[in-house]
């Protein structure tokens, strides 16, 4: 549990009413540090999302439309279907860990730079 002193600080998450009129967000969204973050995210996340969706949905499609393939014996009494389900568990865990690694190493520093650039712009104005 977080210590009570910290708990008392009101969190400063934006509310629907707190649009900051002093910042030109269109300009902020155009600054290179932010574009850099977005392109890194798109390049990494789009293929990863396609990969996990195609992987998992293929297993469900095979179960629906190729039941005899899924029922083929692979390891003793265990058939292809159960092995694919096991592989889906592994896939989900590996994708999650890979994402965490990339987010910590690449996205977080890039997001910090974008916020710094935003503050620098504010101070100039």
């Amino acid at each position, binding site marked *: *549990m*977080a210590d*009570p002193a*910290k*708990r008392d*600080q*009101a*969190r*400063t*998450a*934006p*509310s*629907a009413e*707190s*649009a*900051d009129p002093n910042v030109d*967000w*269109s300009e*902020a*969204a155009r600054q290179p540090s*932010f574009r850099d*973050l*977005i392109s890194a*995210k798109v390049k990494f*996340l789009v293929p*990863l*999302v396609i990969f*996990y969706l195609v992987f*998992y*949905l293929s297993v*469900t*499609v095979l*179960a*629906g*439309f190729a*039941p*005899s393939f*899924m*029922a083929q014996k692979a390891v*003793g*009494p*265990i*058939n292809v*279907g*159960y092995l694919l*389900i096991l592989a*889906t*568990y592994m896939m*989900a*865990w590996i*994708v*999650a860990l890979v*994402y*965490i690694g990339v*987010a*910590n190493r690449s996205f977080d520093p890039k*997001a910090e730079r*974008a*916020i710094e650039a*935003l503050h620098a712009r504010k101070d100039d104005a």
Partner: protein
Amino acid sequence: MRVLTIVIFLVILGVTLVITYWAARRTRTTSEFYAAGGQLRAAENGFALAGDWMSAAAFLGFSGLAALYGMDGSLYAVGALVAFLGILLLIAEPLRNTGRYTLADVIAYRMQKPQARLAALIGTIVVNIMYLIPQMAGAGVLAKLLLGIPYSVSIVFSGLAMVVYVAFGGMLATTWVQIVKAVLLLSSAIILLVWVLALFGFNPVALFQGVETRYGPEFLSPGNYLKNPLDQLSLGLSFALGTAGLPHIMIRFYTVPDAKTARKSIIWLMFLAGAFFMITTITGLAAAYFVGQEEILAADPGGNLALPLLAQFLGGGAGTLGGQLFLAFVAAVAFATILAVVAGLTLATSGAVAHDLYVNVIKRGEVEERTQVRVARISTIVVGVLAIALGLLVQGLNVAVLVILAIAVAASTNFPIIVLSLFWRRFNTSGVIGGVTVGLLSSVVLALLGPGFLGERALFSLVNPTVLSMPLGFAGAVLGTFLGGRNRENEARFDEVAFRAQTGAGAES
């Protein structure tokens, strides 16, 4: 047996009431009530998320499905893990960065229009109520089957308990009740797993061999549960994407200080709940092998008692002390599970009523802090009374199908408007209204016409309509957006939303 279960359950109940008392003294502001002050650690939120996601439908249902239908049950269970990949990769962090207490916050933050919030909160309330009814009914059925307590008594009791947790302890109490329950659930699953594996010389292949010898290879093939091949894909889609539209899960991301912690808490969830879902395949097959499908079906046609019966068998069988002790423990954990999940659902629903509807739509945000908390507590009581009334009304009906409907509605109604709010520049208020209207109508109507409700007389052949209703929900949102016309101000606002959502600017604690 009854006395033993009741004693174990009372101990668990006592612990949760102590938690509620402790949490109530720390719950004064709206942020504390809805989001535990946003100060939970990743592990705390991860265990609580796992508690939310390992509902009775998972604990009892997945094992039952694996015991009665073989592979379809295991496919169902793995879907519940894959569900969190989309949330991890695309939704949780932007949600944490742009919302405060409810799912509708994210949409309202983007659109700045009460109409958008109103449309979004309707999706939240419908999904929560549909999810709540089968949980309440589950508590009633379980109490009757295992303890002989009348259905109505346990419904009223569950409703009272959840109102006490939420009205007094808010999100902090709900979270710690979930944590306690997650630990109990995981421990009992691990004990059962190790016990089962020990009987097979720690060789899972031997378990499969035994099951195959007893029931034949068809039992281990797909298609025993979902007869329509498209239903497999539809279920997969609704899990993979619909989970991001379940408000009681998504509001958990507001309880942590930043996006990084939200991310870490999902990793906790994915390993805790994922391992648990994997275990349900083993315990389900073991129940089929040791207890037998006939006896499981005789105890409950839905297979929901497969796991308690397996526990009884492992403890020494019916009538023995060990068997009674095991059965009592698993039954008590199942009750605790239901109470914890209904508490989470109640909190999410009263947030939509108090924060979205009363404070922001009706009063346009002009409500004092103290009043907001009071309104939240009153709406908790209202939601509790409603849940009790609905639970009593559905007695005797098969409501398990409502879980499928809830997640289909979440995938078709809430998911499209969240994704489009976060990622589509032109999306606007009429798009939100179009998405909610079309997504809600198509998923509910198609499900009502399907075999889940009409059985043999179904006019639509899928139990889970997501494969059709989710694209329709997206189409409604896009159509609404174009009909609403372009709005420069709204599109410029997307830059702010995107910047804040992706960087966390302005959401630092």
